[in-house]
């Protein structure tokens, strides 16, 4: 997951010498930080106008409130559009495919769009802005973004294509009061997770487990279990599908058993909202999923489990230590935009430490600027308990993508998601995953060729 390892794998794929690659890439990534000195001035693009689009999320709504600060700081006018996620995912490819300059800055879902948009040339390379001391504030500090974030913003050749914003972090949420009642130790492995689920399952008052069953949404749940058992979606070179590996098949069996026997009735149609609702109302004991969904648990107006929740990285196994399954949305520039330098100033401001601090504290964003997590002021300002912040920090120390890094990730999620639904309903895991792989393999190969 560290950029050095990632880069080497990718460089192998591109046929560049193994020994030279980490050196070259590390140097480029380091070069992304601006040189000291320079003549940076926030007002340098005064009078320009920008269009920025972002998906509907709590922190982008908080950002909307902060825009007047940017206008005051730079003299740049911003038309800021917050669009529901499904709509922005349609809008961006249509605008960018048409090489439209209507958008200057956009928030990109890197876990869905990174490979597709990179291949299509829809990200403006940002190194030249980051390295330009006249365009990047001297205190910006690119290195402050930890590997969990920079991984998603870098191409294999270390070109910066987007600046990290909110991290999706698949971890583990559980009822620590119920754990204490049963004398259970904190869960660090999948075996312990299964044991805890079985021990705490007491329907209809409490179900041992909650998980997303709806196709598409169920992929990270199964994927993180596969990763936990030592497997992954793809091999190291990212050229072979591993969905029929022993780990993936075992993970599918465990997932189906937990869903079928220990989840609330109807789990097969659950997305994260239904799981979140069930956990908030105190009828679920264990929920491995994105830790940002925990926000309502600690809200006394909405929750029956305030103060009763434990948080930890996603359980691992003998082959894998506990980890955080990551996804990311990041700020990118439209390469066809007409105001790129002004757009860059906006991106630099949004991802600056003070703004990130506020988005994290007020907008429940899981940012990746590591210095913020070490700031006592942040713990005081955040509404979540310190235990949650510690779990986030810990999970971010071992970040692994929670979705496959394939160009056609939506089709992967669709095809394998349907297979998983059938497995929950009782179909054989190996047969279903093999069938899904046969269906997806040509799409995967086409993506590799692209």
């Amino acid at each position, binding site marked *: 997951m560290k950029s050095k390892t990632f880069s080497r794998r990718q460089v192998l794929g591109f046929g560049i010498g193994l020994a030279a690659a980490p050196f070259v890439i590390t140097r480029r990534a380091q070069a992304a930080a601006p040189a000291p000195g320079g003549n940076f001035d926030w007002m340098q693009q005064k009078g320009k106008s920008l269009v920025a689009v972002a998906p509907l999320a709590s922190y982008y709504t908080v950002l909307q409130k902060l825009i007047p600060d940017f206008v005051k700081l730079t003299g740049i006018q911003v038309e800021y559009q917050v669009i529901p996620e499904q709509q922005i*995912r*349609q809008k961006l*490819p*249509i605008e960018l*495919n048409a090489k439209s300059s209507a958008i200057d800055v956009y928030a990109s879902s890197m876990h869905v769009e990174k490979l*597709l*948009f990179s*291949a*299509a*040339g*829809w990200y403006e390379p940002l190194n030249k802005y980051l390295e330009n001391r006249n365009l990047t504030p001297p205190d910006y500090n690119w290195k402050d973004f930890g590997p969990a974030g920079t991984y998603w913003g870098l191409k294999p050749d270390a070109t910066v294509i987007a600046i990290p914003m909110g991290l999706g972090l698949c971890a583990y949420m559980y009822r620590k009061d119920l754990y204490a009642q049963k004398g259970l130790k904190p869960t660090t492995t999948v075996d312990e997770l299964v044991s805890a689920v079985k021990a705490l399952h007491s329907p*209809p008052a409490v179900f041992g487990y909650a998980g997303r*069953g*709806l*196709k*598409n949404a169920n992929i990270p749940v199964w994927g993180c279990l596969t990763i936990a058992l030592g497997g992954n979606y793809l091999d190291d070179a990212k050229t072979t599908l591993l969905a029929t590996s022993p780990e993936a098949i075992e993970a599918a069996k465990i997932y189906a058993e937990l869903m079928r026997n220990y989840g*609330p*009735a*109807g*789990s*097969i*149609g*659950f997305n994260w909202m*239904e799981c979140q*609702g*069930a956990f908030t*109302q105190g*009828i679920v004991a264990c929920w491995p999923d994105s830790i940002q969904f925990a926000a309502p648990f600690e809200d006394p107006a909405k929750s029956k489990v305030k103060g009763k929740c434990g948080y930890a990285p996603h359980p691992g196994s003998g082959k894998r230590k506990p980890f955080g399954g990551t996804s990311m949305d990041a700020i990118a520039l439209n390469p066809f935009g007409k105001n790129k330098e002004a757009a860059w100033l906006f991106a630099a401001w949004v991802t600056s430490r003070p703004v990130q601090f506020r988005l994290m504290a007020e907008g429940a964003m899981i940012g990746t600027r590591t210095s913020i997590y070490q700031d006592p002021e942040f713990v005081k300002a955040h509404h979540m308990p310190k235990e949650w912040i510690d779990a986030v920090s810990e999970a971010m120390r071992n970040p692994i993508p929670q979705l496959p890094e394939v160009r*056609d990730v*939506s*089709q992967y999620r*669709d095809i394998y998601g*349907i297979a998983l*639904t*059938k497995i929950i*309903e009782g179909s054989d895991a190996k047969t279903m995953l093999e069938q899904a792989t046969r269906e997806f393999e040509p799409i995967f190969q086409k993506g590799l060729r*692209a």
Partner: protein
Amino acid sequence: MRGDLRGIGRPAGTLSRRMGLGLGRHTYTLMIVPAALTILLIILFPLVYTLWMALHEYSMGDNAAPRFVGLANYLHAFRDQRFLEAIPRTFYFTLMGVVAPTAIGTAAALLFAREFPGRGLLRTVFSLPMMATPVSIALIWQMMFHPQLGVLNYFLSLLHVSPQPWIFSTRSVLPTLAIVETWQWTPFVMLIVLGGLAALPSEPYEAALIDGASRLQTIWYVTIPLVWPYIMIALLLRSIDALKAFDLIYVMTQGGPGTASETLNIFLYLQAFAFYNIGLSSAVVVIYFIILLVMSIGLLVARQKTSWQ
């Protein structure tokens, strides 16, 4: 007065000359060109472009020009198991989403056609679902359908009925979605039928009264046949709407669990906007359009046959 009417009925050019405008016949033809062009651009161009795209392989993000593949996209669609499964599923949902609102809507219209205290208020309340936005409706019903926390299963528990999985089961998802569709669109049918009832002549009722027909016999043998053309209009509009249903299904289930509620509309949406297969999705649009056209023509013919003789 006679002199004032002399221009009427003569060619427009003559009138314009008399009025001193200097407009010829060609000028009038030119004046309809903008409107005609607008209609062509809005209706014909997308249709022709879709037909053209359906003959090409094109995916957004490929950085390659569309490649002509002939009828390959159509063949691909008809070999795709999901597409083939989506067709009967769409008709099943349409059938439920048409029959139930039509039956309940007609019954409601018969009820609200009669005078009783509070009729206006109740009729307004009954019409409310039709006015709400589908996405909000979908989100509210989604919460109500939650198997453990939803209010519907709570009500069922009061009646000692076991909890239902509603949209969270492959078996019950389509009938459940049809319930929401029925809830939303029954008032629409009611309003159409109510309009028809208000326009009915009184003579057949007087004749039925003289013949000693009971109230039920009057409804069955007089009212229903008379109002049938209006019911057919409701059936026609409802069928087209139910066949096109998208927002409710997408928000509530996204076509799931699995593909249990994946109708043609959801299938083509995924192909176009999730997988960016523009060529294939265009072919599906064309097939869908043909289905819609055939069904509409069939219903229009049936509607013509139900006119009063």
